[in-house]
């Protein structure tokens, strides 16, 4: 049996997040899984029909408790001590990355971050994680348990099975807190969330400046999609960093990912390679993006994009 403590998260609508459903699927792929899902704060209502063994809510702590999750880390650390699971599974979200690492080092546990595959081999846990920006994959045997594992978004299809887990609630403890969030400044977003969009239109250094992003915006609007960008475009200040797709930006998996003037560096592809179809517009036929794309046009975006946009509008009319 593999006992798994899965750290759940809720989304902005108060539902079990897609990344948590993906983690449930990953947990279920292990041998004879016994899965407890815990939520920092009250569990979302939809958690009560998850196909897992039990749900534990740590009441009165919200997912964003102190903003940097010091309370959550302390709560989950005590749960790990009392439950002694084989695997502590988190999503590689802002929450999961921070809490996972702190937990592992606080309790001297094994830690594998940003994994794309979990399995059991001869009783041991085996994890696969992309390394070198995604240029390579590394497979590890986890020598000692409990092991803390964070899971990359999109690595597993979300679990759709239902069940009736036992439900429990525990009281939070009081902790000593060091750092305090005094303010949160949110980027304003118009239209669909990048992570949820069915179509993403991304621009890179090849656009040459900030203005062309308005053409990408028009295209995204015509397709009910969202605008993304490479790190090079964000670092240049052409568009806000909240649009960055990639290893250190957002992970997206739309039906169509349109990359304009993006070379397809492994660190960029790490954020979009689980898209259904990648479409590339790039003037360099040797560019790496054409090794990853399903459809492509070799050409100057300034000539290709206007007619593409016009045709899309006609087709959509």
């Amino acid at each position, binding site marked *: 049996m593999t006992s798994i403590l899965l750290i759940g998260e809720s989304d902005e609508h108060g539902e079990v997040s897609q990344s948590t459903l993906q983690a449930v699927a990953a947990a279920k792929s292990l041998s004879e899984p016994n899965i407890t899902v815990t939520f920092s704060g009250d569990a979302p209502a939809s958690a009560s029909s998850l196909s897992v063994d039990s749900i534990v809510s740590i009441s009165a702590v919200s997912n964003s408790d102190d903003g940097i999750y010091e309370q959550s880390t302390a709560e989950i650390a005590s749960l790990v001590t009392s439950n002694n699971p084989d695997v502590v599974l988190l999503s590689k979200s802002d929450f999961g990355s921070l809490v996972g690492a702190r937990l592992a080092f606080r309790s001297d546990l094994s830690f594998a971050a940003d994994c794309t595959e979990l399995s059991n081999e001869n009783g041991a846990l085996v994890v696969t994680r992309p390394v*070198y920006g995604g240029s390579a994959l590394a497979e590890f045997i986890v020598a000692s348990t409990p092991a803390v594992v964070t899971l990359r978004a999109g690595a597993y299809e979300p679990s759709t099975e239902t069940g009736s887990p036992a439900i429990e609630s525990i009281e939070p403890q009081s902790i000593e807190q060091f*750092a305090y969030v005094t303010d949160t400044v949110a980027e304003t977003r118009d239209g669909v969330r990048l992570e949820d969009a069915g179509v993403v239109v991304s621009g890179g250094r090849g656009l040459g400046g900030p203005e062309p992003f308005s053409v990408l915006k028009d295209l995204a609007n015509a397709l009910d999609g969202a605008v993304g960008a490479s790190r090079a475009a964000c670092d240049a200040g052409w568009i806000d960093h909240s649009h960055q797709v990639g290893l250190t930006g957002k992970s997206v998996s739309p039906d169509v990912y349109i990359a304009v003037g993006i070379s397809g560096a492994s660190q960029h592809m790490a954020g979009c390679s689980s898209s259904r179809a990648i479409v590339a517009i790039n003037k360099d036929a040797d560019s790496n993006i054409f*090794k990853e794309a399903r*459809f492509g046009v070799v*050409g100057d975006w300034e000539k290709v994009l206007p007619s593409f946009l016009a045709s899309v509008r006609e087709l959509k009319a």
Partner: protein
Amino acid sequence: MVLAKQVPDPETPPSQFKIDESTNSVVPPNGVPPVVNGFDLNAVEAALLLRDAGADVEITVLSVGTDFVMDSMKKTLAMGADRLVLVDDDGLDKIDSAATVKVLATVIEKDGAFDLVLGGRQASDWDQAHVPLGLAEVLGLPLVSLVQKLELTDNGITVQRVITDGYQEITAPIPAVLTVTNELGEPRYPNLRGIMQASRKKPEVFSLADLGLSSGDLAPKLKLTKLYVPESNQQVELIEGENEADSGKKLALRLREEKLI
């Protein structure tokens, strides 16, 4: 104290990225020297910005590894750091992050006084993003990750921490551990004077034995069994029209045909 790791140049084009599967290690492309991890230069820059803002800071760069290329590592001194401390030992070739944290913590505790430990948000070789986080836990210090702006205050620091769609303002006491992200801005280029000064400085080098550690203390919790380049069987369908504008039009029609748009 700035944590800086020497890594293979991440700008190596994918076509030149090679792995020796018999040793599970990356073969550096000919003539491309390793570099200081990009985010660690952002961390050096963060420290230099504190100095620019008028604070009296001494900046020590600390690195754990082996086969250091001094021209690469000294870039941190040329930018304006004061000291370069290297833990250089063959036994450090293949250690995991838990062991890295152990070595870093040992040096930091030995070296004594510091007010801030600044690391990069992640190292571009193993992409783990957790060494400074682990260090904060082991040293029992406050931690703020993903810092894009940093100010010293009378009794600590205020920082901006990047979150998914914006940022948080955070106050913390010092000493503290921070990880720095590229949103901080481009690290400065060393000027001629900096390069001259750096060339005269000698790094302080320690072995594991100097620190009272042995490779037995550093056994990995995760055993690397396979390192390989994933195969891509994606075949691109190139859309060619009479001219580039026509290609754009044909692309739209093709995507509609596939019911993708």
